């Protein structure tokens, strides 16, 4: 008679309306892992931040799992840790494993500060988590697993880093594998990992390094799966730059165009807008792109240099103009509190984006995220930030606390004022 499978609860506390693609990948990879076949049973719980930590714990415990794994980002960290405390109090021997950008780069600190947490999966999680589950089945010695930080007796021990997965196609698609439902407007695909840019405030490039791509065939299969799902009218890609240079982008657009003619649209696609000309804008339109996000985050020369970000005003304007001419809604994003930006730089940014009259302006406050370049260089740059998530900037070398608060309020109000408009003004 075989032993009962290890019951694993995969738990996400998402922004309302979202589902965790990360957990979908973890589950799809682990379910296909030969060492785990038939030995592990998964259940995924997608909840949102409006759910109380006690209710999260209730839902998890009612599943009677042997192991709980939660994905942690800066915006859900408080809720996740609160739920973990309840879970640990209710089931002290049940292992709790965390992963995600909020905990991976500071794994040892997380384990020292949060007694409820058993282990942290650092970096890209699929193969590490699968091996961690194998360790649970074997001897429970998680601290030996590459990419894991765990407790060994009273110590916190970090095993070596795990290399990035070389062949992304070895990670099954959660949609094709059927472990994630395809939901209209809330389905996200990924065509590559990493980022061609290395902006100092962003975890994307820092966490995944060089650009690694899923194969075109795999991407096409995922697109077809999603686009042919009954009731689907729109989905999105989480690629940090959708329009990477090269023929592959053009072929991807051509493939998407087959679905666009049936009315399937793409929303909130992130673009390198400075690479967009009239021809590419038309291509994006044919591909069904309805809305895009384009930066510039700041127009201040010092902040751009400090954050290793480029900005060409003329090319930016040309790109936005080309997109608008194709009827594509453009969202311009600005960040308040970047090191190097003065108050006047922030105001210049507002003036610049309002002069473009995009569909939407999003002004957010800098979050100094663990593992990012700004996090590492905070002292050198004179950046003060809240050590607790979501790590909002408190003061910079150029803007004190009062100036930042005034600017963030004004930026938020500007977004609302701008968004109250006739064209595209419906919620």
């Amino acid at each position, binding site marked *: 008679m075989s032993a009962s499978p290890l019951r694993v609860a995969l738990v996400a506390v998402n922004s309302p309306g979202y589902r965790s693609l990360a957990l979908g990948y973890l589950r799809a990879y682990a379910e296909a892992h030969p060492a785990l076949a038939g030995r592990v049973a998964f259940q995924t719980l997608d909840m949102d931040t409006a759910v109380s930590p006690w209710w999260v714990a209730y839902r998890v415990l009612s599943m009677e799992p042997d192991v709980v794994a939660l994905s942690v980002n800066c915006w859900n960290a408080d809720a996740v840790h609160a739920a973990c405390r309840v879970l640990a109090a209710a089931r002290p021997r049940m292992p709790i494993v965390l992963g995600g950008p909020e905990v991976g780069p500071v794994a040892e600190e997380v384990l020292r500060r949060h007694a409820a947490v058993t282990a942290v999966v650092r970096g890209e999680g699929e193969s590490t988590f699968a091996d961690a589950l194998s360790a649970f089945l074997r001897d429970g010695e998680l601290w030996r697993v590459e990419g894991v930080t765990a407790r060994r007796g009273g110590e916190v021990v970090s095993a070596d880093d795990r290399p990035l997965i070389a062949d992304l196609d070895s990670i099954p698609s959660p949609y094709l594998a059927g472990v994630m439902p395809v939901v209209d407007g809330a389905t996200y695909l990924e065509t590559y990992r990493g980022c061609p840019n290395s902006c100092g405030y962003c975890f994307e490039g820092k966490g995944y390094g060089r650009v690694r791509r899923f194969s075109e065939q795999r991407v096409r299969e995922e697109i077809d799966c999603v686009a042919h799902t009954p009731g689907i009218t729109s989905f999105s890609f989480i690629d940090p730059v959708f329009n990477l240079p090269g023929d592959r982008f053009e072929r991807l657009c051509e493939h998407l165009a087959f679905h666009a003619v049936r009315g399937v649209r793409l929303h909130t696609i992130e673009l390198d807008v400075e690479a967009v000309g009239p021809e590419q804008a038309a291509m994006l339109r044919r591909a069904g792109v309805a809305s895009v996000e384009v930066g510039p985050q700041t127009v201040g020369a010092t902040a751009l240099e400090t954050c290793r970000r480029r900005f060409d005003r003329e090319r930016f304007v040309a790109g936005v*103009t080309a997109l608008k001419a194709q009827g594509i809604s453009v969202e311009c994003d600005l960040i308040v509190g970047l090191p190097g930006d003065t*108050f*006047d730089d922030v*105001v210049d940014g*507002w003036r610049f984006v*309002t*002069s*473009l*009259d995009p569909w939407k302006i999003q002004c957010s406050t800098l979050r100094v995220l663990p593992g990012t370049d700004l996090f590492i260089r905070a002292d050198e740059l004179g950046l003060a930030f809240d050590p607790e998530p979501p790590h909002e900037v408190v003061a910079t070398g150029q803007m004190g606390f*009062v*100036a930042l*608060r*005034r*600017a963030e*309020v*004004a930026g*938020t*109000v*500007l977004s*609302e*004022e*701008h*968004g*109250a*408009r*006739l*064209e595209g*003004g*419906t*919620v």
Partner: protein
Amino acid sequence: MLPFVEVKTGTGDAAGCVRCGVISDAAPVPYEEALRALDAAVAAWTGGVNANVSFSGGEPFDLPSLPDLVARAVAAGAARVRIVTSGAALGVAGNAGGCQSAGVRHMRVVLLGSAGLHDALAGSPGLYAAAMEGVAAWRDAATLGRDRTFLSALVPVCEHNVGDLPSAVADAIAAGAREVVLRVPSSMDDPRSMRWIGSACDTGTVNRARVTIEGLPATALDGYAEHAALLGGESR
């Protein structure tokens, strides 16, 4: 912060301080005059970015042709249409929803002070409550219509309400205003007044709303010299 082209629908404000004697100034302009002003504004729009139009002066809702003016602005391609009102007319059944259906997304209510002072300065008992009813109707209509709207307040500052400004700002924000514009006479630059105005600006910030100053260089405010652009001026 967004620029609006002003089209006058009357003289004076929708509400004025009777102690200052400005209320007698309010009167609607003839329709043809408002139309000419709108057409001139439309003709002056430059290509690329659509303009924003604000109907203000007197009580715009007293103008029977207001729906026609709004429709013309929308048809001309205005991205945003605003009405500056006492707020009371918004409480009349159908007005708030009708405005939004017609394309008005920005509403600005003239307040002379906080709940306790407004009626006394307007010389109109019950006007504040009527304004708040109107504001509530505006917000309800926006919820129902799922339109993004923007509510702001205009406070014409005078010696009779300057000490009330922080309360007025707080009350306006509590009613849903995301911006409060303080229109300050340029002569009102004495230290005491400036302290109240500065406090009103800070009240806005801590309540996460924007306070803008018209008529006075914001650089004159203590602590705001470097941030004057926030208040509608240029930084020092």
